[in-house]
């Protein structure tokens, strides 16, 4: 049987990929997708912990996360569209007018 640490390592790798995507990419849609990767990395660790603890709590939380993630994606994409209409750009650096 595959030990728990393997799942967690995969989860950590996925999470790091997502984080790197959020920081390094300059396209709002890519950033949103990176956030989804991070969320799914967390889901993976929840399910793994649940499996090894022998109950279904981890799976239940995962469903919650997926639901929230779906809602978040909807809102996030709507915001991205609104921003695009406003500035004709998807680069987050273009949206800095709230500074001093």
């Amino acid at each position, binding site marked *: 049987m595959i030990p728990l640490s393997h799942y967690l390592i995969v989860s950590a790798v996925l999470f790091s990929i997502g*984080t790197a995507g*959020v*920081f390094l990419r300059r396209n709002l849609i890519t950033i949103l997708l990176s956030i989804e990767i991070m969320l799914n990395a967390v889901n993976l660790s929840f399910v793994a912990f649940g499996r090894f603890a022998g109950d279904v709590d981890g799976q239940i939380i995962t469903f919650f996360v997926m639901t929230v993630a779906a809602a978040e994606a909807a809102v996030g994409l709507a915001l991205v569209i609104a921003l695009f209409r406003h500035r004709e750009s998807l680069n*987050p*650096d273009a*949206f*800095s*007018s*709230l*500074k*001093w």
Partner: protein
Amino acid sequence: MLALIPLFPFLGFVVNATMGRRLPKGVSGGLASLAMLASLAVSLITVLQLRGLSPDARAIEQTLYTWIASGDLNIGLSFRVDPLSAVMILVITGIGSLIHIYSTAYMHDEVDSEFARYFSYLNLFASFMLVLVLGANFPLMFVGWEGVGLCSYLLIGFWFKKKSANDAGKKAFIVNRVGDYAFILGMLAIFAKFGTLDFQAVASAVAAMPAETGFGILSLATLLLFIGATGKSAQIPLYTWLPDAMEGPTPVSALIHAATMVTAGVYMIGRNAVLFSHAPETLTIVAVIGALTALMAGTIGLVQNDIKRVLAYSTVSQLGYMFLAMGVGAFGAGIFHLYTHAFFKACLFLGSGAVIHALHGEQDIRNMGGLKKELPITYWTFLIGAIAIAGVFPLSGFFSKDEILFETFVEGHKLLWTVGALTALLTATYMFRLVFLTFHGERRHDAPAAADAHDAHGHASDDSHRHDAVSHGHGSGSHLHDAPPAMALALIVLAIGSVAAGWIGIPHAIGGHNELATWLEPSFSAPRVAGEAAVSEAAVEAGEAAEAERAALELTLMGVSLTIAVAGIAFAYFVWVKRRRIADNMVREFPGLHRLLLNKYYVDELYDATIVQPIKAASTEGLWRWFDVRVIDGAVNGAASIVDGSAGVLRRLQSGSVRAYAGSLFVGVVVILGYYLWR
């Protein structure tokens, strides 16, 4: 029942203050006078009730409710009438009513709203004055004390369009603040010592103590109270406001600045007679200040040219007499003089008002003369008032002034007696100078106009007077109107009072019974404990022998003061009627002295230089330019610039770059997690 006495004038004030501008003059003036008459009626009934009680139990008290209850301090809204306040309420409501009636004619040239404003102030004043004399404890008295000060300010500045009237009002108010401050401190001292502020409780507590030797807490408290009295009753050093207060309408001068308010200080000492007689140090100060004030004001009155100012200085001088009486322990004599003075001084002021009214605002006696024929009622009443104040037998002023001088002499204050007698001479002289210059001789127009522009009467600026001037002409040849009926009524009643008011205090020496002194006696001693031994028979017999000796002395002194009065009148007649040139020569002989007196010893200038200007300078340079601008504004502006400066640094964190925010968020999370994992 007692509460009704101040309530009636207060209702009059409320009606005139709220609806006055829509009421015609007859209604507002009539209402105000009616309120006073109603109050007079209630006062009379109360005093009659009081007479029905036995002398030892003569006090009626009414507590409306507990006003202040805080720890040890328990003060009721209580009114108490005893023989002393009975005299006061009769004087206030009686003379007050007459002056209200007089005012309906005197102020008739004012427009309706001003007329109602005048009467609302006058009623409010009467109400507060009655609270002052009826209050059964210090704080309630202080309410009245401050209230009459307010009304005094309002009425002095009644013609508020005139700068001098405004200034005089402010001066009266501010000078009185100095005294009132001391009065409050005196109250605090009494509360600290006795734990109560009720007059009777304080008197009982003091009576149980021996008289103070040296300067202790009693002396301190009474001295502070006396400083309060010097403010309200215009004594050295706080008298300077009273002569300026003559800027107000003349009936106001008669009511507030002669008959009632300025006597509040005398009343206050009489009310606390037990307290003051246990502080001999203070009493000495009171007597000396009183005598000095009497003499100083008398000398100033000798050379003033404004008819009302002469009377004002005369008032200051007579108040000095009252304080002299209080100071030598002759409380009854002081109150007696207060009571007779109210009659003749009100009569004189109202007489001067009638003159001013007839001459359309002329107040300078150098422009008068020869008014005797044209204003007969005014002349005769004024003359009676002048004889009364000069102290000629058997008019009222003779008895009261004589009692004061006699008591002063008997108490062993020979020097003070001399000062008092000298002042009596001055009084007779300046009063008859006023009579002769105003009413005798020929009509004159020789006053240098420019010098006295400051004294001009507020009336003159009113349009309402112009038509009078047109229809009657304004020269010496024109016919002048004597006092109209309402004014004549007040004058005649007060003249009768000036003659007869003294008759309730005729001393034993000339066959009287001095009823007033007997009547007032219980007010000046501590409340008796029931069953206390009466005066023994032997003491009564010994007293009778001494009494005969006293009577002889009293008769002698009476002769002296009568001689003085007549001498003063004769001197005035000689100088100002027979040999007018003597007066001018005296001015020429002693120009320095004349100028000193004409300028009132330069006391106003002295106060201005030593107190007013330094305070002004300190306020401008210290409080305004330094404290307000530097410290207050500096603190406010400093707080703003600190915020501004730190914000200038901190705002650089707000770069606007979303990824920078996300990065700092990430670093923050890593740091926090790292801390928990590896600690």
